[in-house]
């Protein structure tokens, strides 16, 4: 270990467990029985669209929302248990929370923002100074201790918010869309930096995000929430490469959609037919002949082919879009629009594209 690196805080040892959590605003159910675990030293991303309940779940763990049923515990400590009638006060839970808006106290300096939690814990002044300095150094904020929040850039404010949440060594750090207030350019750098920080300090973190790339980049495990229920959970690779539902498949990447009808099912493969085309794909979930279904394939798995062949379609070229590091092509076949990355000879009017059967997932359309 480099001598200049400040000492690292003790590694967390407790597991966060949420069991069958329900929550509603009036008659409107927000969480419909969510269970999850967060192991020590692990980063779990709560992913979902707005209204999926991801932030509500995070705030329930922090104690800022009032669940109606279920249990939340960290190690031996029960934070919430509807059956036992336990609902620990927010300030007693000893968790770290990084707010989406950062929520820095505008009337306190950076130092005082970070030191406040230690003062509340009655820690000696000299030790407070030491620990705050260490936390600020850890986050590269050493020189800014005396500034007021409004004198900081967005990125610096975010770091102060993180330092404030880490300084008292909470067993779990909760982060609510920690990157969403940053500019798009800054966000990618901050993502790498945040992941590095989490790994270096060995934090257990629960991170809310609506961005699947961010979720995959930052976490060891992803929980995809859909209207208050867990749609699927797993490692980023699992979620991206082996989606169990159409919702997960669509949420996790950029896709082509091919609506059609199943005409054959053989050995885990199905033949999907549309107007003027037919393709073999991999069966996902229950599927039988005659079902209306949708074929889904990632853009990067769709390939431009040099001639006719298996699972290839002859399409018209609509247009090309230059994206900098690559080029995206748009093709059409009847009502179908298919996008993929790659280059075409100048002046091409038509091209074959290949959709490998293993990469084309076929999901039955939900009834109704």
């Amino acid at each position, binding site marked *: 270990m480099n001598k200049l690196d400040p000492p690292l805080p003790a590694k967390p040892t407790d597991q966060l467990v949420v069991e069958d959590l329900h929550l509603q*605003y009036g008659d409107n159910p927000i969480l419909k029985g969510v269970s999850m675990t967060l192991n020590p030293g692990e980063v779990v991303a709560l992913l979902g669209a707005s209204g999926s309940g991801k932030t509500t779940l995070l705030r329930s763990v*922090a*104690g*800022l*929302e*009032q669940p109606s049923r279920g249990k939340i515990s960290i190690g031996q400590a029960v934070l919430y248990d509807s059956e036992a009638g336990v609902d620990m*006060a*927010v*300030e*007693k*839970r*000893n*968790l*770290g*929370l990084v*707010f*989406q*808006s*950062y*929520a*820095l*106290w*505008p*009337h306190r300096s950076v130092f005082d923002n970070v030191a*406040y*939690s230690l003062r*509340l*814990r009655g820690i000696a002044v000299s030790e407070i100074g030491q620990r705050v300095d260490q936390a600020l150094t850890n986050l590269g904020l050493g020189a800014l201790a005396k500034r007021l*929040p*409004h004198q900081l850039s967005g990125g610096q*404010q975010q770091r102060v918010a993180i330092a*404030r*949440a880490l300084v*008292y060594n909470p067993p779990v750090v909760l982060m609510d869309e920690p990157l969403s207030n940053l500019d798009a350019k800054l966000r990618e750098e901050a993502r790498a930096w945040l992941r590095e920080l989490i790994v270096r300090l060995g934090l257990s973190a629960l991170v809310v995000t609506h961005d699947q790339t961010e979720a995959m980049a930052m976490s060891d495990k992803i929980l995809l929430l859909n209207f208050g229920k867990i749609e699927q959970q797993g490692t980023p690779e699992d979620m991206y490469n082996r989606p169990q539902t159409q919702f997960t498949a669509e949420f996790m990447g950029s896709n082509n959609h091919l609506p059609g009808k199943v005409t054959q099912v053989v050995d885990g493969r199905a033949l999907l037919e549309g107007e003027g085309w037919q393709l073999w794909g991999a069966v996902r979930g229950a599927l039988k002949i005659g079902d209306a279904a949708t074929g889904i394939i990632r853009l990067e798995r769709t390939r431009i082919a040099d001639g006719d062949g298996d699972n290839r379609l002859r399409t018209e070229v609509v247009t090309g879009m230059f994206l900098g590091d690559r080029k995206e092509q748009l093709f059409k076949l009847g009502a179908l629009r298919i996008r993929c990355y790659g280059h075409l000879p100048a002046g091409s009017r038509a091209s074959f594209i290949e959709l490998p059967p293993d990469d084309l997932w076929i999901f039955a359309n939900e009834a109704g």
Partner: protein
Amino acid sequence: MTVRSFSFPRSTVVVITALVILTPLSLIFWQSFLNAPFFNPAKHLGFDAYRFIFDDPDFWNAFLNSVVIAAGMVTIALPLGAALAFLLTRTDLPGQRIIEVLVLVPVFISPMVLAFGYVVAMGPVGFYSLWAKAIVGEVPWNVYSLTSIAVIAGLTHVPHVYLYSSAALKSLGSDVEEAARVVGANPLRVALNVSLPMTAPALFYAAVLVFFLGFELFGLPLVLGDPEGHLVLSTYLYKLTNKLGTPSYHLMAAVAVCIVAVTFPLVLLQRWLLKTSGKYVSVKGKATRQKLLPLGGWKWIALAIVALWLLFTIVVPISGIALRAFVEQWGEGIALTEVLTLENFTQVFSQSDQVRAIVNTFLIGTIGGGLAVACYTAIGLAGHRQRGGVAKVLDYLVLIPRAIPGLLAGLAFLWIFLFVPGLKELRNTVFSVWLAYTVVWLAYGLRLISGALLQIGPELEESARTVGASSAQVLRQVTIPLIRFGLLASWLLVFMIFEREYSTGVYLLGQGTEVIGSMLVSLWGAGAIDQVAALSLINIALVALGLGLALRFGVRLHE
């Protein structure tokens, strides 16, 4: 196709506004440096008027009383108003909906009426005093002492502090408070370490406002200060005429300038505070659904304190007036059932001036209120989305009437109507009162209008411009239709304020210009308690009508 052309006469509006505001003010100023009334041919410039009042111990006594009362009001109203705001915005105090409405009632009741209410309810022979005496053997309070005046004024100004601090608390993102909870602060610490310092600018603003209102106090000290001879600056000014027996306009003007010399810097201070408080707003957090703080067993104690305050500021004075209005007389040893009567109202309705006062008050609130809102709208639009010279001039111009207490404004307008050629005929019409009211409440009215205008996103107007509307068309077809509801709400609020107003009409009171407010001051001076009670009750009924309509239509009672 012909387009009806209509160009908004911006400069005309600004010039008229300036004229209406500055003429009376400069008249007062000029008059204060004369040694005789300005219409007296023998007048000459000098400091005689100032010399006279500065040599008068009564002036200094009144000045000191004003400071003491104003400071006392701040001491009482600030903590109570802030605590009330916290209870109503952050905790699960029961009955919030109804309390939120009741809290504002003292703002809309004429201080003259309230003061009278305290006299008949808690004066030496008031209803509550005698009932208390029957129980404990003596009247346990004296409403005529200086302390009582400060306490009553303080308690009736709690709503002003409440309004500003609750607005600040509501705009304070809940995330900064939640962040403190999460790092380990209990609710009390959150309130003390985060909410209080972050709302400090608003609280300081409210403190300045209350102090300044304390300096302008007229009705309360006029009624309650009289028996023991406690004068404040405004009542000193009011009684100057009696003191010398001749119209001592120059002395009154000098006192007026002294009052404005205190209030105007306070208004500027408020403006500065409002600007600097923006620093905190720039890093304001995001408001999320707030989890209310459970008060547990404390909720009943908190509720009892709030109820006690409401009892003292609303129930006691109003019930006192209501009772007094229906009895022939009241004093020790009188049984309530034997003196009940409707005679007081019959008397009011048999006097033509009092009937006129009621009719005029109603007209000035409805038609006058509508016209005032139209004027405020014109001024508001003249400054709307304008930068540079005109907007700046307007900005400062409209601050001036705030610094001039109604009593002084009424006096200045009296002089203008008396001595500006061509206006004399209007002197004896309600127009003179209406004009004075409109100018006195200009700042309030403009805040209502600009509040409504702020609700319109600039892009709504900009997009109309881009599709080809002229600025006049934007005004007529986009801006005004969009603030329609805001204008109606303002009308209702201005109605209530005009029903309540009393001091502005005092010097304008004459045949044809009677309004209930000034009539009450005059009748009180003449000792006509029975009619004061009846008229006060009618006045309360008129305000209640406005309040009822406002609640029925969901009008926000403050900007």
